[in-house]
């Protein structure tokens, strides 16, 4: 009688707290759960009653890694509610800022969180001995992303400059030129990382699911777009509720979502599957080199898709800075006129589709909020993936099974603490 | 009140008579003279307060009359009137002490106001007369006329030569910042957020770099970049003059000096003052010196006053200067007089009265009341051009091998400014901090440096969110008056190349011994073999690079060889690190600093030593000295107090003192133990047990603050005079050289004027609290 009992308490190398539980006897699975037990954080209860100026500041604190994505989604939602159209320069700077976050987040995940598994170590720290150059390179890229964000918005974690209506500070074009040079140098770094990844044996497993991401006819959608899906036509962002359909499950403080199937996936692989044709040439080439061809149904390949996106955002940023060099940067003061209304702002955070939905009264005070977090949307998919994966590997050792399950969760790059808090709120006239 | 006597001297009858009539109507007594000789005769016979004098006289010239009148009656103040202003005569007149000049035709109201101000400013002997700083020769001031394109090419020339810091706009305000082109420069502005002195004394600067890899090594850091400050208003010029005195004259500050020597000052007269500014009340809306060039926009061009040779060279090189015309001088006066009318704030009393006013109102409840809404946010001091207090910190790199010692702006209004390592805060209420700042601005700085501590720029009043910071409001609110005229004299002195005052000398730890549970005594000698050369009562600053610096009294006498001893209690970060040191290790030492015990005053006298607890540490230095030179002194009486027998320190030395037949020795502990057979009680109780000749005895006391009160009480009971009671005070000390400000007690710096004081000196210092 073969028993497999796995209880991963607080899986490591992911953001937030989650457990994996597997109980199997003689090939029969008694229990298999991806449990999210992160502390609920009550964000929309916290946003209620706040002035619109404070809302992005608080919303940013949903997540420390994708604080830029939350900030941008948040200001977009406020702007949508008030009917504000930001300037060309603002839109461009937001894209550049967002790219900085992608660079940092993807490098962090691919090299610090996911790669160690493939290199047979349990963290990045031993790699300082064995792969010192890679570690130094990763730190250099992170530092580049950080400095880029600093120049545009003052700080990377919980940025300052990105406000409703525009920016509170104007970046120094000479500092951006400097960044451009460092980005150009980074191309070489990415080549080395791609080479490294080619040597790694990415686990293979396939389960086709619905893939959802923003779609923008003009470019590979990261900051703007409508909701695209492999299973349906593109829908406007404002009708997101019909896509997400959140529901509770008892073993998780995070909610689940589903659309056309039992579950759906968001994130790098979804974006790749839907929009790969719009990747910049250098990224497309890297995808081919790494064996990533659309459509790809292997969740372990999310990490590879992130690597491809890293190359894309580096090129995109170089192009943006060149453009700003020719147009120059003007000091623009954001002008905000408050009015009652509801607005939805959506971005593709590094981990997937992120939506902020706000309602304001005529004094600019928030009365209702709803946020859909990327990882939220993936929990269900992770559960279904595990249910499809485990039967086929039950004959392996417990260690092997545990490793594959952990790596599965890790490849989604989950951001668990963000995902445990938000729900539609109805204003109950309490105050 | 008796009517003031005025003398009017002019050869034209109509001028004489009309001025006389006007002044009589205004309540003065007026006599007239039609030529110089007559005027001088009258001055010999009458005590005139003010003379109104025409420069162009028949016979004896106006200038000669001025000069001669001064010898007859030095207190006589003179006002020149002239129809033909020339630069030379004006300079001459100024040189001979004329107050001001008016251009004919004289507007009666102007004259009257000038006389009124002059009369009010007369020194009637009530103000404390401070020793005047030796006057340097009159600064160069020559006037030229240049066009606005001359100004432009001057600035552009400067930009090519050096880094130019000029006035630019920022978010609707003005700041001093690097100029990339002439077009960025704004010469007509009201006030900048921060004063231009921040380029001479920046908010944060590195003093030293250090490396501790094989023992501590220090390296000086300096900024010698050539710069020019352009657009500096006279009030800021006056403020820089004060900073020059502070940082150059005594204990020359190498970092400030380097910057100062490499910075040109191109001033501009202020035509549109800020709403909070009251510079004319402080006499700082004009500057006679302290600049290389001072420009005035007179509409039809610019006047350029030359202050230094460099200024003259620049003018010649770039600006195509020409001689001024009489019309231009008149126009300049017009422009400047008009600017004066634009100030919205002023002192209601002559500034000379401030000293006495502030002195007499120390206990005024106004201070606490006003400071109620003070946030202790520091805005007022950080934007102030005459503030210069700073903090010094060490920052180590993560490798724990190298680091830097830097200083940053600090302020007496911040809560922890006067807090020491043991936790005591010597200025812990908002009211006391507010009072201290105002007193510094209006009194202490004037007394110490002979210059106004406030230039009336108005920045603090603008920056203060609680709207309580304006000194003029505080002064007016208290309001009395005395005018002390301080003459500006400033020339950059070539600083003698002495040892950099912030650079520690390396000292080797030769021996360590335990004294008590938290006390040790360290024997040091300088690595380069030199002697410390200290006086008993002085202190040193001990450096452990990366941790910081701490003031420690010297515990041994200079008569005891090259090595010196520091007895130290472990209370804070530095002393903690010191206590971990082993023999053979090296520290940094600066000093000796401070005034030691008054050895000369003690010669031939009986000395009553009283020490409580670790007060013994500094006192031991003097006791050893006196024992080594026994024949110079009378009776030696030593009274020691400790908390308990186990807390007695230097016990074998105490034994020696006890057994010494020429020493009268008594000891007590507050709480005895089973073995203790000596006195039990506080050290104060020992005083009645000694019989002293109060006319020939000096008491020297060191101990905790609480002890002073009781001991002094006892000493006063037996009739000892204040000047025969000597004590050593503790305060937070950082720089040791009278600059950073933390050790201030009212207007004195403990590190310079102390730590040893007589009780007589302390009677005037309310914050000493004894």
């Amino acid at each position: 009688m073969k028993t497999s009992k796995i209880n991963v308490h607080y899986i490591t190398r992911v953001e937030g707290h989650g457990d994996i539980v597997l109980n199997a006897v003689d090939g029969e699975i008694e229990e298999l759960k991806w449990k999210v037990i992160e502390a609920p954080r009550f964000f929309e209860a916290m946003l209620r009653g706040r002035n619109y100026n404070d809302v992005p500041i608080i919303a940013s604190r949903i997540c420390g890694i994708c604080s830029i994505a939350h900030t941008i989604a948040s200001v977009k939602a406020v702007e949508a509610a008030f009917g504000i159209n930001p300037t060309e320069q603002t839109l461009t700077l937001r894209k550049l800022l967002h790219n900085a976050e992608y660079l940092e987040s993807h490098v962090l995940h691919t090299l610090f969180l996911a790669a160690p598994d493939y290199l047979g170590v349990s963290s990045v720290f031993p790699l300082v001995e064995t792969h010192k150059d890679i570690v130094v390179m990763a730190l250099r890229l992170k530092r580049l992303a950080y400095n880029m964000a600093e120049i545009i918005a003052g700080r990377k974690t919980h940025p300052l400059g990105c406000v409703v209506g525009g920016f509170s500070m104007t970046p120094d074009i000479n500092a951006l030129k400097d960044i451009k040079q460092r980005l150009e140098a980074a191309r070489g770094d990415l080549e080395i990382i791609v080479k490294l990844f080619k040597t790694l044996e990415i686990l293979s497993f396939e389960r086709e699911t619905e893939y959802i991401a923003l779609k923008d006819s003009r470019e590979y959608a990261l900051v703007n777009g409508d909701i695209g899906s492999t299973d349906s036509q593109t829908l406007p962002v404002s009708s997101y509720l019909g896509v997400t359909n959140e529901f509770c499950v008892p073993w998780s403080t995070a909610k689940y979502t589903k659309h056309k199937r039992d579950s759906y996936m968001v994130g790098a692989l979804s974006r790749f599957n839907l929009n790969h044709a719009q990747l910049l040439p250098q990224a497309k080439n890297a995808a081919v080199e790494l064996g990533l061809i659309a459509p790809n149904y292997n969740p372990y390949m999310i990490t590879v898709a992130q690597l491809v996106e890293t190359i894309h955002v580096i090129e995109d940023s170089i192009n943006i800075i060149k453009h700003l060099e020719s147009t120059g940067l003007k000091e623009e003061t954001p002008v905000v006129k408050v009015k009652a209304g509801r607005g939805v702002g959506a971005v593709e955070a590094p981990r997937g589709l992120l939506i902020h939905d706000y309602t304001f009264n005529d004094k600019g005070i928030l009365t209702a909020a709803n946020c859909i977090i990327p990882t939220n949307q993936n929990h269900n998919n992770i559960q279904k993936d595990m249910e499809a994966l485990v039967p086929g590997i039950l004959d392996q050792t417990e260690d092997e099974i545990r490793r594959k399950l952990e790596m599965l969760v890790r490849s989604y790059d989950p951001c668990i603490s963000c995902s445990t808090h938000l729900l539609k709120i109805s204003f109950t006239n309490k105050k | 009140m008796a009517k003031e006597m005025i003398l009017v001297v002019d050869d034209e009858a109509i001028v004489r008579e009309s001025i006389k009539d006007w002044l009589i109507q205004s309540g003065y007594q007026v006599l007239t003279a039609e030529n110089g000789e007559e005027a001088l005769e009258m001055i010999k016979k009458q005590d005139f307060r003010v003379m109104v004098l025409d420069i162009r006289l028949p016979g004896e010239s106006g200038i000669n009359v001025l000069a001669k009148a001064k010898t007859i009656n030095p207190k006589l103040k003179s006002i020149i009137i002239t129809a033909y202003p020339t630069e030379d005569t004006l300079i001459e007149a100024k040189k001979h002490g004329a107050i001001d000049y008016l251009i004919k035709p004289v507007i009666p109201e102007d004259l009257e106001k000038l006389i009124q101000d002059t009369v009010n400013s007369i020194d009637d002997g009530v103000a404390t007369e401070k020793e005047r700083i030796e006057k340097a020769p009159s600064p160069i001031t020559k006037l030229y006329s240049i066009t606005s394109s001359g100004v432009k090419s001057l600035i552009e020339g400067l930009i090519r030569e050096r880094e130019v810091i000029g006035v630019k706009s920022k978010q609707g305000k003005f700041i001093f910042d690097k100029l990339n082109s002439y077009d960025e420069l704004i010469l007509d502005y009201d006030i900048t957020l921060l004063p231009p002195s921040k380029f001479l004394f920046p908010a944060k600067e590195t003093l030293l770099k250090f490396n501790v890899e094989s023992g501590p090594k220090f390296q000086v850091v300096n900024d010698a970049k050539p710069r020019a400050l352009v657009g500096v208003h006279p009030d800021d010029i006056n403020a820089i003059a004060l900073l020059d005195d502070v940082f150059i004259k005594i204990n020359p500050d190498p970092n400030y000096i380097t910057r100062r020597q490499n910075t040109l000052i191109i001033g501009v007269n202020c035509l549109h003052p800020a709403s909070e500014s009251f510079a004319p009340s402080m006499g700082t809306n004009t500057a006679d010196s302290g600049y290389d060039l001072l420009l005035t926009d007179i509409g039809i061009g610019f006047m350029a006053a030359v202050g230094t040779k460099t200024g003259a060279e620049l003018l010649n090189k770039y600006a195509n200067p020409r001689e001024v015309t009489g019309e231009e001088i008149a126009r300049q006066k017009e422009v400047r007089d008009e600017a004066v009318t634009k100030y919205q704030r002023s002192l209601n009393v002559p500034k000379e009265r401030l000293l006495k006013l502030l002195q007499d109102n120390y206990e005024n409840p106004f201070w606490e009341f006003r400071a109620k809404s003070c946030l202790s946010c520091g805005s007022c001091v950080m934007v102030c051009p005459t503030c210069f207090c700073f903090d010094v910190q060490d920052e180590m790199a993560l490798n724990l091998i190298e680091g830097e010692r830097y200083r940053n702006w600090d302020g007496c209004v911040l809560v922890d400014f006067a807090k020491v390592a043991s936790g005591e805060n010597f200025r812990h209420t908002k009211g006391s901090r507010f009072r201290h700042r105002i007193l510094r601005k209006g009194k202490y700085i004037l007394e110490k440096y002979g210059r106004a501590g406030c230039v009336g720029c108005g920045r603090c009043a603008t920056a203060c969110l609680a709207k309580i910071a304006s000194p003029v409001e505080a002064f007016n609110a208290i309001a009395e008056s005395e005018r002390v005229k301080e003459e500006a004299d400033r020339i950059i002195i070539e600083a003698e190349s002495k040892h950099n005052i912030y650079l520690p000398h390396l000292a080797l730890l030769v021996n360590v011994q335990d004294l008590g549970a938290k006390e040790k005594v360290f024997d040091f000698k300088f690595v380069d073999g030199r002697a410390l050369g200290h006086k008993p009562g002085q202190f040193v600053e001990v450096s452990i690079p990366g941790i910081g610096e701490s003031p420690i009294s010297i515990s041994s006498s200079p008569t005891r060889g090259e090595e010196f001893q520091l007895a130290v209690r472990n209370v804070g970060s530095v002393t903690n690190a010191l206590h971990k040191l082993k023999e053979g290790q090296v520290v940094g030492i600066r000093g000796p600093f401070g005034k030691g015990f008054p050895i000369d005053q003690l010669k031939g006298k009986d000395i009553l030593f009283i020490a409580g607890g670790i007060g013994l540490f500094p006192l031991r230095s003097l006791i050893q000295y006196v024992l080594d030179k026994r024949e110079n002194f009378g009776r030696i009486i030593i009274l020691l107090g400790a908390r308990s027998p186990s807390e007695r320190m230097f016990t074998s030395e105490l034994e020696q003192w006890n057994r010494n037949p020429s020493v009268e020795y008594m000891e007590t502990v507050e709480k005895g133990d089973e073995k203790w057979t000596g006195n039990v009680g506080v050290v104060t109780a020992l005083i009645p047990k000694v019989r002293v000749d109060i006319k020939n005895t000096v008491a020297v006391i060191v101990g905790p603050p609480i002890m002073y009160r009781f001991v002094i009480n006892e000493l006063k009971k037996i009739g000892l005079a204040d000047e025969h009671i000597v004590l050593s005070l503790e305060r937070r000390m950082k720089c040791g050289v009278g600059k950073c400000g933390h050790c201030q007690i009212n207007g004195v710096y403990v590190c310079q004027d102390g730590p040893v004081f007589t009780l007589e000196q302390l009677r005037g210092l309310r914050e000493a609290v004894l």
Partner: protein
Amino acid sequence: MKPRVAFFDFASCEGCQLEALNLDAGELLDLIAAVDIVNFREAMSESSDTYDIAFIEGSVTRESDIARLEKIRQRAKILIALGACATIGGVNCLKNHMPMEEALKIVYGEDAKNYDTIPTKPIDEVVHVDYYVRGCPPPTSEMLKVVKAILLGKKPEIPNYPVCVECKWSGNVCAFERAMTCLGPVSRAGCGAICVTKGRNCWGCRGLVDEPNVDSEKEILQKHGITLEQALQKFQIYSTGGEKK
């Protein structure tokens, strides 16, 4: 023997730990030469129950957090609160301003009974804290300052003066002069006044100074056009409002 350092997180966004890793290569190498990082769930899989220095990010929001925190306190010689959530409660405190049951109901509806939640507490309301590294996020330099101070055996010099000091050092135009209202005058400096320098105002994420003149600040806020209620709201973003920490 190198000190053993462990990182733990409670209810937080994990941004503070991320900032801790934001070192350049040289600094990271110096850091791991000086200390052994034995627990950092977000970045490594090994863990250990033996550590000298524990960094805690996040606030206490559940009953179960209390026992967990107490156990960490028992094991660590030095406990350091890292970031606003740990030092003063942080944005998690916003939920304290409405009754708990209401917040639960709003978020989870009828399933509310499954969720354990208590009013947010900063960690020093549960255990003794040796050092505070403040801010949202704290500047990396301050975390390093505390580490260096521990290694050198000295007290880290953290400012006890308001943000205004650093604003003036930077030559900023005051937020109040740019039609904003600001908590700088009562909030603890050490952040370099970064928010104001980048065009915003201060939200007080580092907590109050030791002796804040809160009444004066409230008056000033009101003078600049916000009501007392709005002023109180400002204090609440990062903490339960008004106390010194």
